[in-house]
């Protein structure tokens, strides 16, 4: 469905302390910049409508893998963002209550490299639903058993999103590394054996028109590994970080303009309803953490202001919608098939 055809959306109500003031002052400063002639056109500004999802860059940029398409170039040695401690996450969870955050997401790097991750997820399940984005290669049975018990004792779902880029090692391994297909599938088996229903997340490294064939093949492979009702999610490639070197980066033409936002439903964009906790502060979205203007402040209140979506990656979001959230989270349902 074209989400922009939805006539039913009501304006998100923002009654938070200071939100109106902050937004106005931000917009005013953009206008000031225009008057000085610094820009020839109005900027494509997206305001934070409501903070529905709070992300945690819980493993910083540290990962056991070095995928060729990683949009923030994570690796075993990338320390540009560090781990979040249990205390830091708990402090943010408490801070989040008055914002009415609906769901919490955990990403990295590889979240399970953070030694606090299991207690962090257990604690999060006191506050709301949690989703962890993992490459599936470092999972340990004792962690999964604890997490399964935590989920059963909670009102909320604990979702696992396991990244595997295609139904065969031939498709996946050149991108994610030798034997990663086999190791990630072993992770999926461990999850399924404990009753989890992981969402297999793939970056579309094949042609769009092959979607049906690739997904069908993937369902069959997963079935052979004991996962009979596989949940699948396809992500578009983000031409940032390592992926910019693998294929190509964004060109100057890949830009969202202010005119393109006229009549466009910005609630499809992650930055309209999310923020990210990192060890350097609160970032606008999980995609742009590497660019310096993405860090908006040190508190959720400071990060409650508009952002100009002038990056190349913003053009991908514009085209594909809320690419980061779970299908259950939005009516538009994550990646739209008919963009």
């Amino acid at each position, binding site marked *: *469905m074209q*989400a922009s*055809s*939805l*006539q*039913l*959306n*009501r304006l*998100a*109500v923002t*009654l938070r302390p200071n939100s109106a003031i902050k937004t106005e002052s931000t917009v005013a400063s953009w206008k000031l910049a225009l008057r000085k002639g610094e820009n020839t056109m109005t900027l494509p500004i997206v305001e934070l409508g*409501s903070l*529905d999802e709070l992300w945690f860059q819980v493993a910083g940029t540290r990962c056991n893998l070095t995928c060729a398409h990683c949009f923030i170039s994570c690796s075993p040695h990338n320390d540009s963002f560090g781990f979040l401690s249990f205390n830091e996450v708990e402090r943010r*969870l*408490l801070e*989040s*209550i*008055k*914002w*009415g*955050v*609906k*769901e919490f997401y955990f990403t990295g790097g590889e979240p399970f490299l953070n030694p606090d991750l299991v207690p962090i997820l257990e604690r999060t399940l*006191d*506050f*709301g*639903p949690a989703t962890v984005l993992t490459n599936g290669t470092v999972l340990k049975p004792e962690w999964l058993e604890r997490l399964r018990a935590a*989920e059963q004792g909670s*009102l*909320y*779902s*604990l*979702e696992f999103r396991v990244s595997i880029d295609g139904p065969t090692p031939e498709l996946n391994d050149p991108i994610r590394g030798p034997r990663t297909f086999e190791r990630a599938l072993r992770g999926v088996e461990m999850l399924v054996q404990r*009753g*989890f*229903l992981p969402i297999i997340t793939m970056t579309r490294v094949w042609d769009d028109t092959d979607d*049906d064939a690739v997904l069908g093949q993937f369902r069959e492979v997963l079935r052979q590994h004991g996962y009979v*009702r596989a*949940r699948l999610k396809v992500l578009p490639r983000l031409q940032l970080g390592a992926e910019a070197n693998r294929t190509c980066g964004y060109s100057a033409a890949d830009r969202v303009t202010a005119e393109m936002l006229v009549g466009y439903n910005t609630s499809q964009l992650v930055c309209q309803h999310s923020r990210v906790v990192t060890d350097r502060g609160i970032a606008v979205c999980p995609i742009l953490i590497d660019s310096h203007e993405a860090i908006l402040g040190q508190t959720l209140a400071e990060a409650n202001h508009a952002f100009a979506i002038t990056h190349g990656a913003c053009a991908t979001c514009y085209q594909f919608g809320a690419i980061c959230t*779970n*299908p*259950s*989270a*939005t*009516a*538009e*349902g*994550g*990646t*739209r*098939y008919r963009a």
Partner: protein
Amino acid sequence: MIFAFFGGIYNNHIAFKTAIADARQRGAERIFCLGDLGAFGPHPNRTCELIRAHEIEVVQGNYDHSIGHALNDCQCGYTDPRDNHFAQLSYDYTLANTSDEHRAWLRSLPTEIRFEVDGLRILLCHGSPRRTNEFLWESATSTQFLNKLCDDFACDLILGTHTGLHWQRSWGTFPTCPDSTGTLETCPTMNRHFINVGVLGRPENDGTTNVWYTMLRTGHDAGAGRSPLPCEVEFIPLAYDHDQLVREMTVEHLPNEFIETILTGWWTTCLEILPAKERRRGRW
């Protein structure tokens, strides 16, 4: 006061008729329907006629908005192409078989109804107060989010439907809550509530053929000391002549996938949007 709330009817006029009689027998003084009159089942005009004959108050669902305005689809926003395929078949059937007069009436329905009773500010919506087609799943909706909806929309009790699964949560609010543990559900004063009233249109993916609706009692009618809350919620499992529904669906050439759900109680489509806990309870 005693209320009955019906969720999506999805053209299941047989369950609907049974539910009206059942709710009246249980003493319902006012009956509401929270929208989505059309979808999987047969003969959409019959549902509209029943609603209007029994003076049931209706909130407009996304389906009603779409049918009323003859849009291209139901605005559920499924992501799986198979889900969209089946959703489209029932949508096209419902659109083709709803009279112009009923479509005009569907267009005129309000997107929310508010009233105050026994000290409770009540808001009725379809999906959520902020968006008609927002899915509020029990396991994917934090209490703090519900609490903020009550703040933003100045109410104590929100009732919705849209997901097809009934559930209920009560919690306390600021300034006494939350305590240091951060949870709002363990508050001494549980003064806020969310209820998903379920749907009459199809079973709840639990392997039984019955459908669900909700009775709400407030003030003197609430619980005679049984409930610590200012209102009492009762979810009613409703048996109806589902074989008759299946016969009508077969004659109308509606998809076998939907007929199977009516007969088995297991959902066969639109599973992609379920969060883990809800998905695990089902069969597929």
